[in-house]
């Protein structure tokens, strides 16, 4: 029997032959006994063992007999060696008795509260007690008890009496997340997991500890006492938050999502996910739109039947014919985004479509069209793990794509990865991946990149914030080519890469085809059943240009879908544009100020109620099926198809199958791509005392729309603090702890200051937490000049 991890032929030189329970096995050198046994179908019971964590052999549950060794040995910590003869509980009474003994010990102080414990029904301790435990306890003295439960954070609760001290949670936090905020405290029988006074377990990955806890000791505030595992239906899904592309398991009961877990996917998220992906799904129930609404002549919005609403919408579009813009968010599935792309070109005859409801530029459009769209997977997670040099530009992995962070940390822990970050300061997150920071002012990225000695064949990861500073993306391309490095663009939202791929941009058709290329239009036209010449051939307006055109009357109607006004680069301008046009159609899942304003508000299905695909940052399709089927919510594509039909078009795309088939018919584009951008960098702004260059990014946990309704999660947000260098602070008479006012002509933000080691003349604040709302309060972006003052005005 040959056992390998990847089903490939074992390399004989690197393999060993041994015997487990009388069966000869051949495994790669270094394979732990417990894994080898597992692969031949024998489950050795275990608690502390976890394949992603270093072995500790603490729980002693996995003891087996090894020929020649006087005592039973922990199979989780000993690698099989040539000729070793191992007997597990299947064939050895020594192993069996040792395991039974440990099980008895684990149960003496364990409460008999399985009927009320969240883990009941899916509990390794419960399960293993059924096989290795005694029917009745011999323990006749007082059990160890603790007051219950301890709040490790607002999100994670600990019932200490249930804990078996396996230390999976503390080891995860230290080894994997790099957040040793929980630790084993006390000693001996009093040993317990805990936090330091006044420092809660606010790790972005804390929820994983609940999932790997082999007992019911760790629970989440959001799921505790909510349901029983056997009442839940589990379906595999893909996380809709960031572009990491985690596989998730969504557990629902009676059409309500009760919880989400990481679904093991070795190529992507391995065993983990972040707390946003795990806990931020309450929005699914918040202010859900279930009924189309139309605005009547007297100005009131009223419920409408679908056919009437579609009619009404189509009439509005016809009235504005040729003057309709399509503004999308970055969270649409690839299929839905594709439907918008097709709808804009066929039904609205326009290229005025943009999914970038965030900082964006023409340079970025060209970058996406020339480097990203249709490039497939230029960099993968596996590449990151193997990489020797990774350069981060305008990208803060833990905040903006946390699974990339975990993979970089894994590589950094192994010691062969060097990370260089072009950033204003060394964040704690960057420290955890042993990154070296080249302290850079926003605006100076291009200059710094060009001056930096970057190793050949590095990997360059550039974040979406690079669009804020002219010239950065151009420089990134130039440097990547010069150093023969792989380049990957990391958007922040799950739908952005897919939207690029299907051409939800003013200059791109699906598959990276430039709208300006005849053969590209012909290709697309053939699939759409129209003549290529019917597809508009001039690059359309981008997000800012659409807004501008709406304000000056060149655009009369807007189709707005899947976006939050507060996410817009300038929410105020977007609001004015909406005000200025004659007709607004919105497609969304929640009722909000935007939908209440619309002439037609059409409800669409959230991710749980539809099938779809997100393309993650790697370019890897992450398809998912419909989890909840009974709500009859329609996808965006289905709604667009209805409108198109009503306009008399043969639009297709009625079903997901049809959509996917049509998408698959595009094939790759071998024609001319967009020209790579070559924009000169203006460099960082000059500032004098009283002002500073703004640096800002979104923290993973912030006040984003999809995190609404989950207060427990919100409680683990990072503190809202502004950062300045010592020199800049001193020049402005500021000290740590001061309140600092950051303002511009639009408004001001007042938050607490902490002086850190960072580049001079720059003030950093989080983009969207509590009082620090850069877009809505300042309408500013990275690189803009703001004024700074001590205290409030």
């Amino acid at each position: 029997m040959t056992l390998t991890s990847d089903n490939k032929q074992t390399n004989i030189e690197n393999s060993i032959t041994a015997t487990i329970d009388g069966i000869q096995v051949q495994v790669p050198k270094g394979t732990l006994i417990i894994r080898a046994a597992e692969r031949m179908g024998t489950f050795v019971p275990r608690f502390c063992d976890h394949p992603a964590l270093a072995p500790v052999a603490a729980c002693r549950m996995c003891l087996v007999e090894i020929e020649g060794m006087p005592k039973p040995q922990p199979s989780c910590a000993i690698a099989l060696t040539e000729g070793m003869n191992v007997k597990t509980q299947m064939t050895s009474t020594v192993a069996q008795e040792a395991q039974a003994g440990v099980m008895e010990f684990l149960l003496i102080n364990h409460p008999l509260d399985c009927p009320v414990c969240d883990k009941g029904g899916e509990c390794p301790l419960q399960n293993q007690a059924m096989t290795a435990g005694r029917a009745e306890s011999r323990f006749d003295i007082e059990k160890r008890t603790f007051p219950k439960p301890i709040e490790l954070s607002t999100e994670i609760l600990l019932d200490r009496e249930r804990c078996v001290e396996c230390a999976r949670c503390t080891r995860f936090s230290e080894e994997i997340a790099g957040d040793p905020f929980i630790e084993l405290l006390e000693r001996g029988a009093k040993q317990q997991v805990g936090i330091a006074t006044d420092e809660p377990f606010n790790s972005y990955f804390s929820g994983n500890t609940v999932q790997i806890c082999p007992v019911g000791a760790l629970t989440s505030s959001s799921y505790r006492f909510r349901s029983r595992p056997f009442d839940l239906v589990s379906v595999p899904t893909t996380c809709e938050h960031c572009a990491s592309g985690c596989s998730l398991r969504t557990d629902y009961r009676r059409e309500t999502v009760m919880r989400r877990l990481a679904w093991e996917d070795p190529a992507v998220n391995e065993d983990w996910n972040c707390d946003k992906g795990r806990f931020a799904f309450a929005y699914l129930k918040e202010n859900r739109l279930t009924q189309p609404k139309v605005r009547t002549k007297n100005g009131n919005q009223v419920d409408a039947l679908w056919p009437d609403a579609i009619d009404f919408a189509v009439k509005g579009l016809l009235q504005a014919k040729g003057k309709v813009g399509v503004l999308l968010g970055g969270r649409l599935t690839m299929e839905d985004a594709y439907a918008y792309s097709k709808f804009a070109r066929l039904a609205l005859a326009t290229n005025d479509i943009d999914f970038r409801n965030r900082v964006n530029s023409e340079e970025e459009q060209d970058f996406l069209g020339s480097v990203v769209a249709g490039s497939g997977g230029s960099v993968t997670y596996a590449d990151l793990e193997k990489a020797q040099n990774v350069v981060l530009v305008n990208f803060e992995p833990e905040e903006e794509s946390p699974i990339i962070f975990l993979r970089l940390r894994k590589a950094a822990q192994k010691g062969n990865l060097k990370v260089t970050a072009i950033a204003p300061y060394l964040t704690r997150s960057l420290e955890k991946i042993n990154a070296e920071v080249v302290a850079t002012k926003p605006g100076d990225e291009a200059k710094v990149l060009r001056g930096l000695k970057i190793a050949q064949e590095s990997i360059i990861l550039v974040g979406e914030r690079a669009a804020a500073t002219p010239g950065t993306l151009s420089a990134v391309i130039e440097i990547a080519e010069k150093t023969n490095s792989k380049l990957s663009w990391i958007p922040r939202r799950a739908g952005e890469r897919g939207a690029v791929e299907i051409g939800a941009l003013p200059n791109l058709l699906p598959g990276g085809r430039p709208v300006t290329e005849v053969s590209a239009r012909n290709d697309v036209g053939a699939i759409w059943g129209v003549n290529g010449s019917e597809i508009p051939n001039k690059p359309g307006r981008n997000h800012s240009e659409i807004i501008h055109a709406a304000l000056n009357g060149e655009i009369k109607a807007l189709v707005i879908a899947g976006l939050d006004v507060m996410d817009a680069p300038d929410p105020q301008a977007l609001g004015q544009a909406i005000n200025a046009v004659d007709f607004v159609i919105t497609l969304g899942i929640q009722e909000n100020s935007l939908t209440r304003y619309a002439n037609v508000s059409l409800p669409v299905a959230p991710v749980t109620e539809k099938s779809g695909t997100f393309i993650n940052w790697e370019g890897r399709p992450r398809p998912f099926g419909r989890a909840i089927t009974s709500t009859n919510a329609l996808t965006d594509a289905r709604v667009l198809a209805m409108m198109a039909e009503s306009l008399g078009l043969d639009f297709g795309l009625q079903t997901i199958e049809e959509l996917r088939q049509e998408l698959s018919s595009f094939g790759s584009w071998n024609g001319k791509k967009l020209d790579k951008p070559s924009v000169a960098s203006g460099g960082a702004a000059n500032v004098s005392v009283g002002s500073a260059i703004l640096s800002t990014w979104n923290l993973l946990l912030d006040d984003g729309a999809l995190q609404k309704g989950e207060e427990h999660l919100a409680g683990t947000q990072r503190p809202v603090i502004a950062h300045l260098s010592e020199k800049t602070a001193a020049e402005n008479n500021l000290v740590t702890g001061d309140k600092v006012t950051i303002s511009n002509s639009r408004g001001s933000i007042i938050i607490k200051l902490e002086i850190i080691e960072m580049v001079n003349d720059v003030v950093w604040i989080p983009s969207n937490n509590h009082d620090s709302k850069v877009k809505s309060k300042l309408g500013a972006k990275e690189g803009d000049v703001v004024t700074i003052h001590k205290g409030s005005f």
Partner: protein
Amino acid sequence: MALTPVLTAHWDDPNSFEITSYKKHGGYVALKNSLKMTPDEVIGIVKDSGLRGRGGAGFPTGMKWSFVPQNDGKAHYLVVNADESEPGACKDIPLMLANPHALVEGIAIGSYAIRANHAFIYIRGEVPHAIRRVMNAVEQAYADGFLGKNIQGSGFNLDVVVHAGAGAYICGEETALLDSLEGRRGQPRLKPPFPAVAGLYASPTVVNNAETLASVPSIILNGADWFKSMGTEKSPGFKLFAVSGHVKRPGIYEAALGTPMSELLDYAGGMRKGSKLKFWIPGGSSVPMLTPEHIDIPMSYEDLSAAGTMLGTGTPMMFDHTTSVVKAVTRWLEFYKHESCGKCTPCREGTYWITGVLEKFEHGKGKEEELTIINDVCGQIAGRSFCALGDAAATPFPGAMKYFADEFLQATKTSADASFPPSATTIFEKAGV
């Protein structure tokens, strides 16, 4: 056999702990001699002497030193285990009080042998008097050029740091000690890697007991044969025996290994007046107890092992007929429960369980069938725990049951204090306030 004062030879000097006194009696000559040899020659002498570890396990010291990889370009470390905390063990602390320079010289020689330029003396925290004396000895040794840069012109550098623990018996376990010395919880490490390969700061490290290292200078000075002329073939040399309990003159008796217990007891003046030996423990609470019938047993590694016990720390505790075995065993288990580090299940939960049941027996409330349970539980701890602390915790009860099962049966009805009035067991004339 006879008493063989070597380490204790000058403890009656008024300033035995000062470098002047130490040097007057030939101190630091062994270091000078060692520095003229190659490190391997030094290891060779220690190997030839047959010196075995005095901390309890009895591992051959020279062999341990030779395990350290050479010319590996890594920093090497010598760590002194002076975390003397085993119940009954009380020989390293007096040694450090009265003769700290023997230890410091032993450290310098040992470090030279294993190519270490940094040594740490990990002393249990609760002994400020010993910490002061060792800190002072280290300072004096620096001042006299026996530590520091270019020692005695040899080109050999050595820095020594005196480090206090903070109250955790488990730190006597060498890997737990290393974690503690690295500023962590003193929980034992998974082996391999062994300290000789990856010890302190993941570098090659030797951990030696204080008495072991203090014995080295005399070996270098007088030769392996001299050392072997004392003791037995398998247990060569001299040893500090600390005899305690109901004896007339409890104290430190330095004698050749293999000296019969009866002889040591005689040096200690025999049992106290009017008392009879009931049971004794040769080397700390972690080794099985013996009875008067074993009193002639030679105190060597091999003879005690043959008798089903161990030399351990070589610090016999002698208990007389007034002693309640049930109480003694219960107290030891309370100790192991208190000191279990908590890392592994059998030791953490097992000590909790046994102690709880034994406390019932101490109060005359045990049930007969619970004796079987305790025995089973001991069996479930022994050999299945992470480190030797679990094995140690599983030792006192089965050992006591072997000889005193009746007393445990009696404890299902009568409390320990009723069967054995404490006032008779205490050593002061009149109990009470």
